[in-house]
Protein backbone atom coordinates (compact mmCIF):
# COMPACT_ATOMS: atom_id res chain seq x y z
CA UNK A 1 0.00 0.00 0.00
CA UNK A 2 1.37 3.36 -0.95
CA UNK A 3 1.46 6.41 1.29
CA UNK A 4 -1.14 7.95 -1.07
CA UNK A 5 -3.61 5.30 0.08
CA UNK A 6 -3.19 6.32 3.71
CA UNK A 7 -3.47 10.03 2.86
CA UNK A 8 -6.68 9.40 0.93
CA UNK A 9 -8.06 7.38 3.84
CA UNK A 10 -7.37 10.28 6.20
CA UNK A 11 -9.05 12.55 3.66
CA UNK A 12 -12.16 10.33 3.52
CA UNK A 13 -12.52 10.27 7.30
CA UNK A 14 -11.52 13.94 7.78
CA UNK A 15 -13.95 15.26 5.16
CA UNK A 16 -16.78 13.15 6.55
CA UNK A 17 -16.11 14.41 10.10
CA UNK A 18 -15.73 18.02 8.92
CA UNK A 19 -18.93 17.79 6.90
CA UNK A 20 -21.04 16.55 9.81
CA UNK A 21 -19.38 19.10 12.12
CA UNK A 22 -20.43 21.94 9.79
CA UNK A 23 -23.98 20.56 9.58
CA UNK A 24 -24.11 20.40 13.38
CA UNK A 25 -22.81 23.98 13.67
CA UNK A 26 -25.66 25.14 11.45
CA UNK A 27 -28.04 24.28 14.32
CA UNK A 28 -28.38 26.94 17.02
CA UNK A 29 -28.12 24.55 19.97
CA UNK A 30 -24.84 23.04 18.78
CA UNK A 31 -23.42 26.39 17.70
CA UNK A 32 -23.95 27.74 21.22
CA UNK A 33 -22.38 24.68 22.83
CA UNK A 34 -19.18 25.30 20.84
CA UNK A 35 -18.75 29.09 20.77
CA UNK A 36 -20.06 32.21 22.50
CA UNK A 37 -20.00 34.17 19.21
CA UNK A 38 -23.49 35.16 17.98
CA UNK A 39 -25.37 32.57 15.94
CA UNK A 40 -24.94 33.43 12.22
CA UNK A 41 -27.56 35.09 10.01
CA UNK A 42 -29.54 32.89 7.54
CA UNK A 43 -26.90 33.49 4.85
CA UNK A 44 -24.20 32.14 7.15
CA UNK A 45 -26.33 29.14 8.08
CA UNK A 46 -26.83 28.31 4.41
CA UNK A 47 -23.08 28.53 3.90
CA UNK A 48 -22.50 26.09 6.78
CA UNK A 49 -25.06 23.64 5.38
CA UNK A 50 -23.78 23.78 1.80
CA UNK A 51 -20.22 23.44 3.10
CA UNK A 52 -21.24 20.45 5.20
CA UNK A 53 -22.85 18.57 2.30
CA UNK A 54 -19.93 19.54 0.08
CA UNK A 55 -17.44 18.00 2.52
CA UNK A 56 -19.48 14.80 2.73
CA UNK A 57 -19.58 14.70 -1.07
CA UNK A 58 -15.82 15.24 -1.22
CA UNK A 59 -15.41 12.33 1.13
CA UNK A 60 -17.21 10.13 -1.42
CA UNK A 61 -14.98 11.38 -4.24
CA UNK A 62 -11.83 10.59 -2.24
CA UNK A 63 -13.16 7.13 -1.30
CA UNK A 64 -13.88 6.35 -4.96
CA UNK A 65 -10.42 7.62 -5.96
CA UNK A 66 -8.83 5.41 -3.33
CA UNK A 67 -10.69 2.16 -3.83
CA UNK A 68 -12.86 2.29 -6.95
CA UNK A 69 -16.62 1.91 -6.99
CA UNK A 70 -17.31 -1.19 -4.91
CA UNK A 71 -14.80 -0.86 -2.05
CA UNK A 72 -14.96 2.96 -2.31
CA UNK A 73 -18.74 3.02 -1.95
CA UNK A 74 -18.59 0.76 1.10
CA UNK A 75 -15.74 2.76 2.62
CA UNK A 76 -17.68 6.00 2.24
CA UNK A 77 -20.99 4.62 3.51
CA UNK A 78 -19.36 3.23 6.65
CA UNK A 79 -17.08 6.25 7.14
CA UNK A 80 -19.93 8.77 7.21
CA UNK A 81 -21.74 6.67 9.85
CA UNK A 82 -18.62 6.67 11.99
CA UNK A 83 -18.06 10.40 11.38
CA UNK A 84 -21.61 11.29 12.42
CA UNK A 85 -21.14 9.23 15.59
CA UNK A 86 -17.82 10.95 16.27
CA UNK A 87 -19.33 14.43 15.84
CA UNK A 88 -22.22 13.57 18.17
CA UNK A 89 -19.79 12.30 20.82
CA UNK A 90 -17.59 15.39 20.36
CA UNK A 91 -20.61 17.61 21.02
CA UNK A 92 -21.53 15.47 24.05
CA UNK A 93 -18.01 16.04 25.39
CA UNK A 94 -18.31 19.85 25.15
CA UNK A 95 -18.68 21.56 28.55
CA UNK A 96 -22.23 22.76 29.08
CA UNK A 97 -22.42 26.54 28.57
CA UNK A 98 -24.71 29.02 30.22
CA UNK A 99 -27.07 30.72 27.77
Amino acid at each position, binding site marked *: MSIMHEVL*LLGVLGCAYGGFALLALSQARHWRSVTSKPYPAPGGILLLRVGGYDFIGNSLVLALLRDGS*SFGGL*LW*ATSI*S*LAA*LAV*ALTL*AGMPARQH
Partner: protein
Amino acid sequence: MFRREKRLHRASLDLHNLAGVVALPFHFVITLSGLIIFINIYFPQAPTLAYAEANNPRDAFFEEGYGRYSRKPAGVAGSEPARLDVMLRQAKARWMGGQPFFVRVWDPGDAVSFVEVRRSYASQVTMNLDQVYFDAATGEVLQRFEAAQVMSAQRFIAGMHFIQFDHWPLRWLYFVLGLSGCVMIATGYIFWLEARRKQHAKLGWPGVRIVEGLTIGSVTGILIATLSFFVVNRLLPLGVSFAGFERAALEVWVFYLVWITSFAHAGLRPGRAWREQCWAIAALAVLAVVLNAVTTSDHLVKTLAAGYWPVAGMDLLLLTSAIVATLAARTLHRRAASESAVRAADARRLDVNHA
Protein backbone atom coordinates in the same frame (compact mmCIF):
# COMPACT_ATOMS: atom_id res chain seq x y z
CA MET B 1 -28.02 14.32 20.86
CA PHE B 2 -26.29 12.39 23.63
CA ARG B 3 -26.58 14.17 26.99
CA ARG B 4 -24.25 12.31 29.29
CA GLU B 5 -25.02 14.57 32.26
CA LYS B 6 -28.67 13.42 32.25
CA ARG B 7 -29.92 10.57 34.40
CA LEU B 8 -29.28 6.95 33.32
CA HIS B 9 -32.82 6.61 32.00
CA ARG B 10 -32.55 9.61 29.65
CA ALA B 11 -28.87 9.17 28.75
CA SER B 12 -29.43 5.54 27.74
CA LEU B 13 -32.30 6.58 25.45
CA ASP B 14 -30.01 9.23 23.88
CA LEU B 15 -27.29 6.65 23.24
CA HIS B 16 -29.87 4.14 21.99
CA ASN B 17 -31.20 6.62 19.42
CA LEU B 18 -27.75 7.83 18.41
CA ALA B 19 -26.24 4.36 17.91
CA GLY B 20 -29.35 3.12 16.15
CA VAL B 21 -29.89 6.05 13.78
CA VAL B 22 -26.31 6.93 12.89
CA ALA B 23 -25.38 3.35 12.03
CA LEU B 24 -28.79 2.58 10.52
CA PRO B 25 -27.45 2.04 6.98
CA PHE B 26 -25.02 -0.53 8.39
CA HIS B 27 -27.61 -2.34 10.51
CA PHE B 28 -30.06 -2.32 7.62
CA VAL B 29 -27.61 -3.71 5.07
CA ILE B 30 -26.29 -6.38 7.43
CA THR B 31 -29.83 -7.58 8.18
CA LEU B 32 -31.06 -7.42 4.59
CA SER B 33 -27.96 -9.16 3.22
CA GLY B 34 -28.43 -11.89 5.84
CA LEU B 35 -31.85 -12.55 4.30
CA ILE B 36 -30.55 -12.41 0.73
CA ILE B 37 -27.68 -14.81 1.45
CA PHE B 38 -30.14 -17.52 2.51
CA ILE B 39 -32.36 -17.12 -0.54
CA ASN B 40 -32.42 -20.91 -0.99
CA ILE B 41 -33.78 -21.40 2.53
CA TYR B 42 -36.38 -18.62 2.42
CA PHE B 43 -37.56 -19.45 -1.10
CA PRO B 44 -36.91 -23.20 -1.40
CA GLN B 45 -39.54 -23.63 -4.10
CA ALA B 46 -38.35 -20.78 -6.33
CA PRO B 47 -36.28 -23.07 -8.64
CA THR B 48 -39.36 -25.25 -9.25
CA LEU B 49 -41.16 -22.22 -10.66
CA ALA B 50 -38.25 -20.69 -12.55
CA TYR B 51 -37.09 -23.97 -14.13
CA ALA B 52 -40.49 -25.64 -14.49
CA GLU B 53 -39.63 -27.12 -17.88
CA ALA B 54 -36.41 -28.81 -16.67
CA ASN B 55 -36.37 -32.49 -15.68
CA ASN B 56 -34.92 -31.67 -12.29
CA PRO B 57 -35.58 -27.96 -11.58
CA ARG B 58 -33.34 -27.88 -8.50
CA ASP B 59 -30.34 -29.31 -10.31
CA ALA B 60 -30.95 -26.97 -13.26
CA PHE B 61 -31.02 -24.00 -10.88
CA PHE B 62 -27.79 -24.99 -9.16
CA GLU B 63 -26.05 -25.70 -12.45
CA GLU B 64 -27.01 -22.36 -13.94
CA GLY B 65 -26.62 -20.37 -10.70
CA TYR B 66 -23.49 -21.88 -9.21
CA GLY B 67 -21.94 -23.74 -12.15
CA ARG B 68 -20.78 -26.80 -10.22
CA TYR B 69 -19.42 -29.49 -12.55
CA SER B 70 -19.31 -33.20 -11.81
CA ARG B 71 -19.02 -36.54 -13.58
CA LYS B 72 -19.19 -40.09 -12.32
CA PRO B 73 -15.89 -41.93 -11.72
CA ALA B 74 -15.14 -44.56 -14.36
CA GLY B 75 -13.78 -47.07 -11.85
CA VAL B 76 -10.74 -47.63 -14.09
CA ALA B 77 -7.26 -46.38 -13.30
CA GLY B 78 -6.21 -43.38 -15.39
CA SER B 79 -2.92 -42.14 -16.80
CA GLU B 80 -0.45 -39.78 -15.08
CA PRO B 81 -2.09 -36.42 -14.20
CA ALA B 82 -1.26 -33.36 -16.30
CA ARG B 83 0.71 -30.45 -14.77
CA LEU B 84 -1.20 -28.39 -12.19
CA ASP B 85 0.89 -25.25 -12.67
CA VAL B 86 -0.13 -25.08 -16.34
CA MET B 87 -3.79 -25.32 -15.32
CA LEU B 88 -3.38 -22.58 -12.73
CA ARG B 89 -1.67 -20.32 -15.28
CA GLN B 90 -4.55 -20.88 -17.69
CA ALA B 91 -7.10 -20.04 -15.00
CA LYS B 92 -5.20 -16.86 -14.07
CA ALA B 93 -5.10 -15.74 -17.69
CA ARG B 94 -8.81 -16.36 -17.97
CA TRP B 95 -9.44 -14.21 -14.86
CA MET B 96 -7.28 -11.27 -16.02
CA GLY B 97 -4.75 -11.83 -13.24
CA GLY B 98 -7.29 -12.94 -10.60
CA GLN B 99 -5.62 -15.45 -8.29
CA PRO B 100 -6.73 -19.06 -7.77
CA PHE B 101 -7.24 -19.85 -4.08
CA PHE B 102 -8.84 -23.28 -4.15
CA VAL B 103 -7.71 -26.39 -6.02
CA ARG B 104 -9.43 -29.76 -5.70
CA VAL B 105 -8.69 -32.97 -7.56
CA TRP B 106 -11.82 -35.09 -7.88
CA ASP B 107 -11.46 -38.91 -7.93
CA PRO B 108 -7.65 -38.84 -8.10
CA GLY B 109 -6.20 -41.82 -10.02
CA ASP B 110 -9.46 -42.50 -11.84
CA ALA B 111 -9.64 -42.41 -15.64
CA VAL B 112 -12.09 -39.49 -15.55
CA SER B 113 -10.47 -37.64 -12.66
CA PHE B 114 -10.83 -33.84 -12.97
CA VAL B 115 -9.44 -30.71 -11.31
CA GLU B 116 -11.52 -27.85 -9.92
CA VAL B 117 -9.92 -24.38 -9.62
CA ARG B 118 -11.75 -21.50 -7.93
CA ARG B 119 -10.88 -17.80 -7.97
CA SER B 120 -9.94 -15.91 -4.81
CA TYR B 121 -12.11 -12.99 -3.63
CA ALA B 122 -9.46 -11.30 -1.50
CA SER B 123 -9.33 -8.25 -3.76
CA GLN B 124 -13.03 -7.71 -4.50
CA VAL B 125 -16.26 -7.28 -2.54
CA THR B 126 -18.12 -9.81 -4.69
CA MET B 127 -17.67 -13.40 -3.52
CA ASN B 128 -17.31 -14.52 -7.11
CA LEU B 129 -18.23 -17.99 -8.33
CA ASP B 130 -15.54 -18.01 -11.04
CA GLN B 131 -14.26 -21.54 -11.58
CA VAL B 132 -12.51 -23.61 -14.20
CA TYR B 133 -12.62 -27.42 -14.43
CA PHE B 134 -9.78 -29.32 -16.14
CA ASP B 135 -9.48 -32.93 -17.20
CA ALA B 136 -6.79 -34.26 -14.87
CA ALA B 137 -5.19 -36.51 -17.50
CA THR B 138 -5.08 -34.15 -20.50
CA GLY B 139 -5.26 -30.75 -18.79
CA GLU B 140 -8.06 -29.82 -21.19
CA VAL B 141 -10.67 -27.32 -20.00
CA LEU B 142 -13.94 -29.16 -19.29
CA GLN B 143 -16.01 -26.22 -18.10
CA ARG B 144 -15.58 -22.54 -17.29
CA PHE B 145 -18.09 -20.67 -15.20
CA GLU B 146 -18.79 -17.06 -14.28
CA ALA B 147 -22.00 -16.18 -12.46
CA ALA B 148 -24.72 -14.37 -14.42
CA GLN B 149 -25.81 -10.86 -13.47
CA VAL B 150 -28.46 -11.56 -10.85
CA MET B 151 -26.26 -14.15 -9.16
CA SER B 152 -23.34 -11.70 -9.24
CA ALA B 153 -25.50 -9.11 -7.49
CA GLN B 154 -26.38 -11.72 -4.86
CA ARG B 155 -22.67 -12.54 -4.43
CA PHE B 156 -21.84 -8.82 -4.04
CA ILE B 157 -24.44 -8.46 -1.29
CA ALA B 158 -23.08 -11.63 0.36
CA GLY B 159 -19.57 -10.17 0.12
CA MET B 160 -20.68 -6.99 1.92
CA HIS B 161 -21.94 -9.24 4.72
CA PHE B 162 -19.08 -11.74 5.03
CA ILE B 163 -16.17 -9.26 4.52
CA GLN B 164 -13.90 -12.03 3.21
CA PHE B 165 -11.86 -9.39 1.36
CA ASP B 166 -8.48 -7.97 2.27
CA HIS B 167 -9.18 -4.32 3.25
CA TRP B 168 -8.14 -3.32 6.76
CA PRO B 169 -9.90 0.10 7.10
CA LEU B 170 -13.24 -1.46 6.12
CA ARG B 171 -12.76 -4.32 8.58
CA TRP B 172 -12.22 -1.82 11.41
CA LEU B 173 -15.18 0.31 10.32
CA TYR B 174 -17.37 -2.80 10.34
CA PHE B 175 -16.08 -3.65 13.81
CA VAL B 176 -16.87 -0.20 15.24
CA LEU B 177 -20.30 -0.06 13.60
CA GLY B 178 -20.99 -3.57 14.89
CA LEU B 179 -20.12 -2.35 18.38
CA SER B 180 -22.57 0.52 17.90
CA GLY B 181 -25.21 -2.17 17.34
CA CYS B 182 -24.24 -3.69 20.70
CA VAL B 183 -24.56 -0.25 22.33
CA MET B 184 -28.01 0.14 20.79
CA ILE B 185 -29.19 -3.22 22.17
CA ALA B 186 -27.70 -2.76 25.66
CA THR B 187 -29.05 0.79 26.07
CA GLY B 188 -32.43 -0.32 24.77
CA TYR B 189 -32.60 -2.95 27.52
CA ILE B 190 -31.53 -0.43 30.18
CA PHE B 191 -34.08 2.13 29.02
CA TRP B 192 -36.84 -0.48 29.17
CA LEU B 193 -35.79 -1.49 32.68
CA GLU B 194 -35.43 2.00 34.11
CA ALA B 195 -38.78 3.08 32.65
CA ARG B 196 -40.58 0.28 34.55
CA ARG B 197 -38.50 -0.42 37.65
CA LYS B 198 -40.52 1.65 40.14
CA GLN B 199 -43.93 0.70 38.76
CA HIS B 200 -43.16 -3.04 38.74
CA ALA B 201 -41.78 -2.89 42.30
CA LYS B 202 -44.96 -1.13 43.43
CA LEU B 203 -47.26 -3.64 41.70
CA GLY B 204 -45.10 -6.60 42.71
CA TRP B 205 -44.59 -7.70 39.11
CA PRO B 206 -41.56 -9.88 38.29
CA GLY B 207 -41.07 -8.34 34.78
CA VAL B 208 -38.15 -6.05 35.59
CA ARG B 209 -36.30 -8.73 37.56
CA ILE B 210 -36.61 -11.25 34.74
CA VAL B 211 -35.61 -8.80 32.01
CA GLU B 212 -32.72 -7.50 34.13
CA GLY B 213 -31.37 -11.05 34.45
CA LEU B 214 -31.71 -11.57 30.71
CA THR B 215 -30.04 -8.22 30.06
CA ILE B 216 -27.05 -8.90 32.28
CA GLY B 217 -26.61 -12.38 30.79
CA SER B 218 -26.78 -11.07 27.24
CA VAL B 219 -24.59 -7.99 27.75
CA THR B 220 -21.81 -9.01 30.14
CA GLY B 221 -22.58 -12.75 30.32
CA ILE B 222 -21.91 -13.41 26.65
CA LEU B 223 -18.57 -11.62 26.97
CA ILE B 224 -17.64 -13.84 29.91
CA ALA B 225 -18.67 -16.91 27.89
CA THR B 226 -16.59 -15.80 24.89
CA LEU B 227 -13.56 -15.07 27.07
CA SER B 228 -13.96 -18.46 28.79
CA PHE B 229 -13.90 -20.00 25.32
CA PHE B 230 -10.54 -18.29 24.66
CA VAL B 231 -9.15 -19.38 28.03
CA VAL B 232 -10.27 -23.00 27.65
CA ASN B 233 -8.85 -23.04 24.13
CA ARG B 234 -5.42 -22.38 25.68
CA LEU B 235 -5.85 -24.75 28.64
CA LEU B 236 -7.15 -27.95 27.01
CA PRO B 237 -4.36 -30.22 25.80
CA LEU B 238 -4.40 -31.22 22.12
CA GLY B 239 -6.31 -34.40 21.35
CA VAL B 240 -8.22 -34.38 24.64
CA SER B 241 -11.75 -35.74 24.73
CA PHE B 242 -14.32 -35.93 27.51
CA ALA B 243 -17.60 -37.84 27.64
CA GLY B 244 -17.29 -38.56 23.93
CA PHE B 245 -16.77 -34.93 22.93
CA GLU B 246 -13.70 -33.78 21.02
CA ARG B 247 -11.63 -30.76 22.03
CA ALA B 248 -13.45 -28.35 19.68
CA ALA B 249 -16.86 -29.49 20.96
CA LEU B 250 -15.69 -29.15 24.58
CA GLU B 251 -14.78 -25.50 23.95
CA VAL B 252 -18.30 -24.89 22.65
CA TRP B 253 -19.75 -26.69 25.70
CA VAL B 254 -17.76 -24.42 28.00
CA PHE B 255 -19.07 -21.38 26.14
CA TYR B 256 -22.71 -22.38 26.61
CA LEU B 257 -22.35 -23.63 30.18
CA VAL B 258 -20.63 -20.41 31.26
CA TRP B 259 -23.23 -18.36 29.44
CA ILE B 260 -26.12 -20.18 31.17
CA THR B 261 -24.32 -19.75 34.51
CA SER B 262 -24.08 -16.01 33.88
CA PHE B 263 -27.87 -15.83 33.52
CA ALA B 264 -28.30 -17.78 36.76
CA HIS B 265 -25.83 -15.50 38.52
CA ALA B 266 -27.67 -12.42 37.23
CA GLY B 267 -30.96 -13.83 38.50
CA LEU B 268 -29.59 -14.72 41.93
CA ARG B 269 -27.65 -11.53 42.68
CA PRO B 270 -29.68 -8.76 41.06
CA GLY B 271 -28.02 -5.78 42.78
CA ARG B 272 -24.45 -6.89 42.27
CA ALA B 273 -24.45 -8.95 39.07
CA TRP B 274 -23.44 -6.07 36.77
CA ARG B 275 -20.27 -5.21 38.62
CA GLU B 276 -19.33 -8.78 39.50
CA GLN B 277 -19.61 -9.78 35.86
CA CYS B 278 -17.53 -6.73 34.85
CA TRP B 279 -14.78 -7.93 37.21
CA ALA B 280 -15.03 -11.41 35.68
CA ILE B 281 -14.60 -9.93 32.17
CA ALA B 282 -11.51 -7.99 33.26
CA ALA B 283 -9.93 -11.04 34.94
CA LEU B 284 -10.68 -13.45 32.07
CA ALA B 285 -9.43 -11.03 29.41
CA VAL B 286 -6.09 -10.65 31.18
CA LEU B 287 -5.94 -14.39 31.78
CA ALA B 288 -6.50 -15.08 28.07
CA VAL B 289 -3.58 -12.82 27.14
CA VAL B 290 -1.31 -14.39 29.76
CA LEU B 291 -2.23 -17.96 28.78
CA ASN B 292 -1.64 -17.23 25.11
CA ALA B 293 1.80 -15.83 25.94
CA VAL B 294 2.65 -18.88 28.10
CA THR B 295 1.36 -21.59 25.77
CA THR B 296 2.45 -20.14 22.39
CA SER B 297 5.28 -17.85 23.58
CA ASP B 298 3.80 -15.17 21.30
CA HIS B 299 3.74 -12.44 23.95
CA LEU B 300 3.01 -8.80 23.17
CA VAL B 301 6.63 -7.61 23.21
CA LYS B 302 7.50 -10.21 20.59
CA THR B 303 4.39 -9.81 18.41
CA LEU B 304 4.56 -5.99 18.45
CA ALA B 305 8.28 -6.01 17.58
CA ALA B 306 7.67 -8.46 14.72
CA GLY B 307 4.56 -6.59 13.53
CA TYR B 308 2.57 -9.82 13.92
CA TRP B 309 -0.74 -7.92 13.93
CA PRO B 310 -3.33 -10.71 14.04
CA VAL B 311 -2.05 -11.85 17.46
CA ALA B 312 -0.86 -8.46 18.74
CA GLY B 313 -4.19 -6.84 17.81
CA MET B 314 -6.16 -9.55 19.59
CA ASP B 315 -4.06 -9.15 22.76
CA LEU B 316 -4.33 -5.36 22.69
CA LEU B 317 -8.10 -5.52 22.27
CA LEU B 318 -8.39 -8.03 25.12
CA LEU B 319 -6.39 -5.72 27.37
CA THR B 320 -8.51 -2.73 26.29
CA SER B 321 -11.64 -4.73 27.18
CA ALA B 322 -10.12 -5.50 30.58
CA ILE B 323 -9.50 -1.79 31.21
CA VAL B 324 -13.01 -0.79 30.13
CA ALA B 325 -14.56 -3.55 32.27
CA THR B 326 -12.49 -2.46 35.29
CA LEU B 327 -13.55 1.17 34.88
CA ALA B 328 -17.20 0.07 34.57
CA ALA B 329 -16.95 -2.14 37.66
CA ARG B 330 -15.34 0.65 39.74
CA THR B 331 -17.98 3.18 38.64
CA LEU B 332 -20.75 0.73 39.58
CA HIS B 333 -19.06 0.13 42.94
CA ARG B 334 -18.87 3.84 43.72
CA ARG B 335 -22.46 4.39 42.73
CA ALA B 336 -23.67 1.45 44.82
CA ALA B 337 -21.65 2.74 47.80
CA SER B 338 -23.05 6.26 47.54
CA GLU B 339 -26.60 4.92 47.16
CA SER B 340 -26.31 2.73 50.22
CA ALA B 341 -24.83 5.70 52.14
CA VAL B 342 -27.89 7.77 51.20
CA ARG B 343 -30.17 4.92 52.28
CA ALA B 344 -28.34 4.57 55.60
CA ALA B 345 -28.66 8.33 56.21
CA ASP B 346 -32.38 8.15 55.42
CA ALA B 347 -32.78 5.22 57.80
CA ARG B 348 -30.96 7.14 60.60
CA ARG B 349 -33.18 10.16 60.05
CA LEU B 350 -36.23 7.91 60.36
CA ASP B 351 -34.86 6.42 63.56
CA VAL B 352 -34.30 9.90 65.02
CA ASN B 353 -37.86 10.91 64.13
CA HIS B 354 -39.24 7.75 65.75
CA ALA B 355 -37.20 8.38 68.89
